[in-house]
């Protein structure tokens, strides 16, 4: 095992315990090609008589995603994004930059937007995770998703799941955001095709507001035809 297997933990005391266990384990883990069964046994042995600790070897655990409990194999270094995409077959959240620069992997953790590439999967254990798939489906879409399609707030669509998720989080805390608030809330979501103005309109309309279109005095005459 290498250094990225070191247990991730919040409290100093727990961290100490984990580090001690990790050191005890080196002898086992270094020589082991960890199969699921072996890992479970090794972890069980380590955990005997102490508080439940996951890792350092891959372990079966679960996530609560879109209202479903999903079992998966976690290593301590597995990010939430990797767990969702590579273990749970939930591919709405996209891996784009893998360092929270683009927002493509945005999911909701306890209803708050999180770049899932920057959160360890084990830290999401027991928490309510919502991905774009959980916001709505093709057969039962959320009004925001309908507005996104209606206003053509996408081209290639690769950033779209992250955009929808960030916008949904905005609307949950600010049901009628103005244009500046929408721009700010989506400033972490990069779109390379360049659809921002349509995204703004989709969010405005999904929150029951008028899109940014202005009264006309000109109609078709712009292309040289008579109105």
């Amino acid at each position, binding site marked *: 095992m*290498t250094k*990225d297997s070191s247990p991730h933990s919040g409290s100093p005391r727990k961290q100490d315990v984990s580090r001690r266990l990790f050191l005890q384990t080196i002898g086992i883990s270094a020589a*082991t*090609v*960890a199969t699921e069964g072996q890992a479970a046994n090794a972890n069980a042995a380590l955990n005997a008589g102490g508080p439940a600790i996951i890792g350092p070897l891959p372990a079966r655990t679960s996530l609560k995603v879109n209202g479903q409990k999903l079992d998966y194999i976690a*290593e301590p*270094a597995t990010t939430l994004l*990797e767990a969702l*995409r590579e*273990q749970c*077959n939930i*591919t*709405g*959240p*996209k891996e*784009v*930059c893998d*360092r*929270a*620069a*683009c927002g493509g992997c945005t999911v909701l953790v306890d209803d708050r937007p999180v770049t899932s590439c920057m959160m360890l999967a084990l830290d999401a254990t027991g928490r309510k995770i919502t991905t*774009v*798939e959980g916001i709505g489906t*093709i057969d039962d*879409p959320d009004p*925001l*998703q309908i507005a996104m*399609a*209606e*206003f*053509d707030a*996408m*081209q*290639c*669509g*690769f*950033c*779209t*799941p992250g955009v*929808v998720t960030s916008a949904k989080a905005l609307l949950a805390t600010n049901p009628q955001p103005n244009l500046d608030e929408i721009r700010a809330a*989506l*400033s972490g*979501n*990069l779109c*390379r*095709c*360049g*659809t*921002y*103005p349509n995204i*703004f309109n989709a969010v405005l309309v999904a929150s029951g507001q008028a899109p940014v*279109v*202005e*009264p*006309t005095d*000109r*109609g*078709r005459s712009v*292309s*040289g035809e008579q109105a």
Partner: protein
Amino acid sequence: MTHQPRDLRAINAGQSVADHATRLDGLAKATGAARFGRDQIKKDMLWVRLIRCPWGRAKLDSLDRDAALATPGVVEVVVSGDDGDYHGDSIGYLVARNRRGLERGLRALNAKWTRLDCQTGILDDEQARGPMDAPSEAAAKAIDAADFSFEARYSTPVQTHSSLETHGLMIEPDGENSIVHASTQGTFVVADQIGRFLGKRRSKIVVDCEYVGGGFGSKFQIGKEGAAGGLAAKSSGEAVYSFCDREEEHLDTGNRPSLLCKVNVGHDADGTIRGARFETFGGTGVSRRGGGARVPSGRFEFGTLDARNHRDVQFNAGGPRAMRAPGCPQGAFVEELLIDEIAHRCGLDPLGLRRRLDDSDRRQRMYAVAADLIGWENRADTGSQSGTMRTGYGIGTCDWGKGRAPAKIEVVVHPDGHLEVRTGTQDIGTGQRTAMGALVAARIGVPLANISVAIGDSRLPAGPASGGSVCTPSTAPAAMAAADLARERILEGVAERDKLDATKLTIDDGVIMEGGRKVVRWEDACRRLSEPVSVTGEFDGRASAYWGEGSSEGVQAARVEVDCETGQVFVREVIAIQSCGLPLVRKTAESQIMGGVIQGTSYALFEEQVLDPTTGAVLNANLESYKILGSEDCPKIIPVLWRDDQTGVRALGEPPVVPTAAAIANAVFNAIGRPVRDLPLRPDRVLAALAEPMAERVVAVAPRTTEQENRA
């Protein structure tokens, strides 16, 4: 502002074949149901990662292959070289059972490199650029004969495509076949290229690219990541996943090359240009070619020209690939800023001078509308403003060719009235799927709800790659032909059964009519079919009745504010007028134009690959340091679809990205009175320009107003 704001939807109402059609896969994309190549993840597949050079130029000293192979999860290490000519150059690849195996394997491999001297750009080494041809005598004479001569030097940076879905593919075995899920702009290109590595014949390869996460010119070839994936699939017989990570995407999947352009112009006091010499140097990284820039564009009258002086300059960086309108935005930046500089020297309104130098009738009308919509009458004379925040207005232009390629579209009419449009070409976000569906629906006369479109699969009828903006222009004639065949088949059946004249039947919103009389609903007519009917429309890539008439031309006007204390440029509004022949789907066409403007704004203000001059390492190979435009930087954009009475479908993907940076650079010049001749228009460059004297005027006359120019 004295001008009234306008309703964008009213401006473009009635200009397209399908004004209200919504992107057919919009909901699939907004709900996460759309599965891209990069989403084709299986638990038991192999992962591939290239072994890459970390410096501008380096020699491999050692690597520990055995240690890598002994790492849990690593299944194969292939090393085929020991020197790297740029950061990201590859010498082999590693195959592992999972992501962690790849990461650990690469660490265990412990490649040690010796860094060597390298060259990192075209700007720093006059010698390395090599000599240019001697100036043409005729042009030199014309320049000399003019009232004034003007020399300037312009430059543009390396821009990376930065598609959000990285390059790569996933290959899975399917009996004797291989299914290749690729992120590509060319379904059939992948099918042709991957076989060599997979060791399979073309007929055993199926390419699927139903959803592609962005393609701006760099996804025509399978690349090294694709080749390595193919080889790994061949040697393992297993499913293989080979995608670049974000850093590799910036390093080794192409870019818009940098440009250095030296201009020498002779002009008269009234702005007439007598002659011009353009010398261009294109930075091609390690590639031998691909650094060309389209300057001058041919849109403006420059008198006697000396303009084929181009040299590609190699240095230690990844090579270029076509990027949305290759060579054009950089060329437009040089040419359009040059025109504004000459206008200023002569005390002319640059819009007026442009109208004198440009002989396109369509753009002449576009200039007037662009000026009206942006509020050109509010433009202050260049350099006349003081204070911290200064407002500027600028214009840029574009045109595009009429490229086309062979294409087939199949339409299947089902007995329930459903129409299936089938095309193997890809929809990289352009709206190709929706355009084909909406065109067939409109041509037959049925609601779009009756249509589904199968796209992005090499088993479907062949069509062009998404390049040169030829895809929609080429597939549209084939779709029109297929729709007409399907329509005729159904109408003939109705005519025969009801003893009517098929030529007198029409279809309106799903109802077959004779004169004003309803004959039968489309669905009911189709119900008489005993089995689905398939027809195929074909475009031979040259001309047909469906090719029609049209051209792609555009004018953009930008309004900016410049903060003269910080040097920051804010692009407030861009009017983007674009003709593309007959627009098919209003919403997706508007999106294409907006996307061009946004990428052009991003190019103007932010984007620049930075090489470390000592090590040759790329210093900003990820999105937190390679800045692309975000939601808070986004200007207000009015995309105007300019139809006139054009009947043929023409290019739309590339042209709108051409004028934007030029228009913005002109607006900045207008605001601060000094040209910033290097992109991007960084704050430090704006401040440096402000420290210079005001741009020179050689003709001491009061500037004429736009109205006077218009009359002239």
